[in-house]
């Protein structure tokens, strides 16, 4: 009596296929624990504190006072089951604790026991439980199997967002000294060096110079990638993966070509050389704020007029939805432009005004689809109309590419799946989870590969790109089947080749 399955033939993969329950299947999936140094650098206890139980309950009480969403979501769930088949990690693993409601219940049962009358008086009746070591272990395991993609919140009749629950869970874990290595180490690097990769100013400068040479060799056009240029109009803040990873760097080259074609004055900042903000993943407003303030500082120091963000999913969430809160007001910037802008908004605006020229045939070897990155789709907007975050990237792709096909409607736009590596899970020790979590998207991709011969998928998220490059081979696709949106722009854009110096001399 469950949701109606389409009458497709049996060979056809169904991205929404519901697996049988396999309790405990992913119990052992845990990321590495943060070292004492990584913990202390963020002001968290180095290791599990002696009175962890009291500290955890006190932290939960604090969060309940500070975050309405947490309180409302913990109180309001009626266990209707609407969310149970919506999480990609559940669809990929069958572990019932990966059903959003069951993941929430890991926190809710302790909340009930310690913060509600019903849970204090009739714990077994309402599923209230004491906080024990086993519960902490479950938290560590299953709050690191949520990529904070918000798909469950789309379908919940009360909009309960499991991301808020897993963020609170991770925050409590950090407070008792049980943080996650991947996120906390990276946040430490941003605080000291300015980006997730720990790329210092000199390394960044030589990387950008190398890219300038590559572009000029390739096109004959001296496209620049300026660094720390005071007085530039536009500050570009992009995920540091764009500086070296594939296919990310091809996207960065695309942004540079667009800026060049528009004749824009722009710069990257070495101080704020990171769009990603892992403070969100660990649920810490304070960490997220410190990282965001670097962008404000850079904008003030460089005297820019606008801030534009590169292709990155959760970064765009922090930028679009949180930046004004965390680091605003931005009244020192040009009021004629929204703060911040997405590079796709910037490029699409130029395309609409007819300022960019393309040779679409340059992408004719590609039959393309587009993966809506979860945080862009369900936590942000582009342009001035709701849903612009779906239309604008597609509009750009259709402007630069002749063969474009969407995946099934119930797997895209606000019903899109996470790539399987978001929310601070893009780390090698979670590879099993990442591969399984990617399966709904991979099945959806398979349907358009079968129906339309789709060869490539574009995305606007650094995590999506890294994740897909890693897991696509498992599902029979090429690892370079994942592309940056601005990589396709880069392929097709027509740049004016300057006259040679000899001509000038004549």
């Amino acid at each position: 009596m469950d949701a109606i399955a389409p009458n497709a033939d049996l060979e056809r993969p169904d991205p929404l296929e519901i697996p049988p329950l396999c309790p405990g299947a992913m119990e052992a999936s845990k990321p590495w624990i943060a070292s004492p140094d990584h913990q202390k650098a963020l002001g968290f206890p180095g290791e599990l504190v002696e009175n962890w139980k009291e500290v955890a309950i006190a932290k939960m009480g604090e969060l309940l006072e500070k975050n309405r969403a947490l309180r409302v979501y913990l109180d309001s769930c009626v266990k209707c089951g609407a969310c149970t088949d919506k999480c990609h990690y559940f669809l990929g693993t069958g572990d019932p604790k990966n059903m959003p409601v069951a993941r929430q219940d890991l926190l809710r049962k302790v909340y009930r026991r310690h913060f509600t009358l019903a849970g204090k008086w009739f714990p077994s009746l309402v599923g209230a439980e004491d906080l024990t070591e086993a519960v902490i272990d479950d938290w560590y395991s299953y709050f690191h199997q949520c990529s904070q993609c918000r798909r469950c919140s789309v379908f919940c009749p009360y909009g309960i967002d499991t991301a808020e629950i897993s963020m609170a869970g991770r925050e409590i874990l950090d407070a008792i000294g049980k943080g996650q290595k991947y996120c906390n180490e990276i946040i430490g690097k941003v605080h000291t060096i300015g980006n997730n990769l720990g790329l210092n100013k000199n390394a960044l400068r030589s990387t950008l110079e190398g890219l300038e040479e590559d572009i000029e060799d390739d096109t004959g056009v001296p496209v620049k990638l300026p660094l720390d240029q005071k007085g530039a109009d536009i500050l570009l803040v992009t995920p540091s993966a764009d500086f070296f990873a594939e296919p990310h760097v091809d996207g960065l080259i695309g942004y540079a070509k667009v800026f060049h074609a528009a004749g824009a004055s722009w710069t990257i900042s070495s101080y704020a050389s990171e769009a990603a903000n892992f403070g969100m993943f660990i649920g810490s407003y304070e960490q997220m704020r410190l990282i965001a303030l670097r962008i404000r500082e850079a904008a003030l120091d460089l005297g820019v007029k606008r801030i534009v963000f590169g292709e990155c999913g959760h970064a765009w969430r922090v930028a679009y939805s949180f930046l004004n809160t965390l680091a605003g007001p931005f009244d020192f910037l040009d009021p004629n432009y929204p703060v911040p802008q997405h590079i796709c908004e910037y490029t699409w605006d130029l395309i609409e005004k007819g300022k960019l020229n393309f040779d679409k045939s340059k992408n004719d070897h590609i039959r393309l689809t587009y993966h809506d990155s979860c945080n862009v789709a369900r936590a942000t907007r582009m342009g001035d109309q709701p849903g612009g975050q779906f239309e604008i990237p597609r509009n750009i792709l259709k402007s630069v590419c002749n063969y474009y096909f969407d995946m099934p409607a119930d797997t895209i736009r606000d019903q899109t799946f996470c790539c399987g590596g978001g929310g601070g899970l893009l780390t090698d020790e979670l590879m099993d989870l990442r591969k399984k979590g990617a399966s709904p998207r991979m099945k959806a991709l398979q349907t358009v590969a079968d129906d339309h011969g789709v060869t490539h998928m574009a995305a606007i998220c650094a995590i999506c790109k890294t994740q897909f490059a890693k897991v696509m081979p498992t599902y029979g696709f090429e690892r370079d089947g994942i592309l940056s949106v601005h990589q396709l722009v880069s392929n097709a854009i027509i740049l004016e080749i300057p006259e040679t110096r000899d001509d000038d001399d004549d």
Partner: protein
Amino acid sequence: MLTTIYACLFYGATAIFLAGMALRITRFARTPAPLKIPTMPAPTTSSGVAFRMLREVTVFHSLFRANKWIWVFAWVFHVALAVVLLRHLRYFLDPTPLPIVLVQPFGVLASFAMVAGLAGLWARRVVVERIRYITGPSDHLMLALLVAIGLSGMMMKFVAHTDIVALKQFFLGLMRFDPAPLPADPILLVHLGLVATLMIVFPFSKLVHAAGVFFSPSRNQVDDARERRHLAPWAAKLEADRAR
């Protein structure tokens, strides 16, 4: 004696229900939402948000997108319950206003729909593996309570009538703090006892979703983060450290 017990029960239940819900709602309202987290795409105006909320609470739009079976049972139950409650207003209003008179026959039909909806939701808790996994004892008890209220009410309509004139006098009197004698029919006493139980349990259970839905930031926030700076009072205090 019986009248006094039930009068006290209803005064107590009403007080607990009202005070409990007021406390819940005050807590929801006073806890700040530090960040803008509407589930996108979201309305860009307050009137848009009002429409989104109206659509959620009247036709359960998100639930409709999620699962047609849960939607049909849940929606039928809630709408039927609303009609049944309207029908019951005749025990509290004298003279009975015309709309309430007109709703009477629909209220009878709605009682069947209400119990059928509940039965559907209950069946899913048993039959569907995923929902069985997330169902606890209190979820069954809550359904049992609602079904028992529905069935005991229907029994008074279709099996053993009670003296509804006397009943109306009891409730009218109750509202003037001067209750008239309550008919001593066992089914009526069970029905009223269960209703009072529901009122007492309401603010302490998952039934607070009725208020919670209006306070859900993912549904009630306007998508205007770039245009309007949103800052929680506790977060504003952090800004003291900012040089510029």
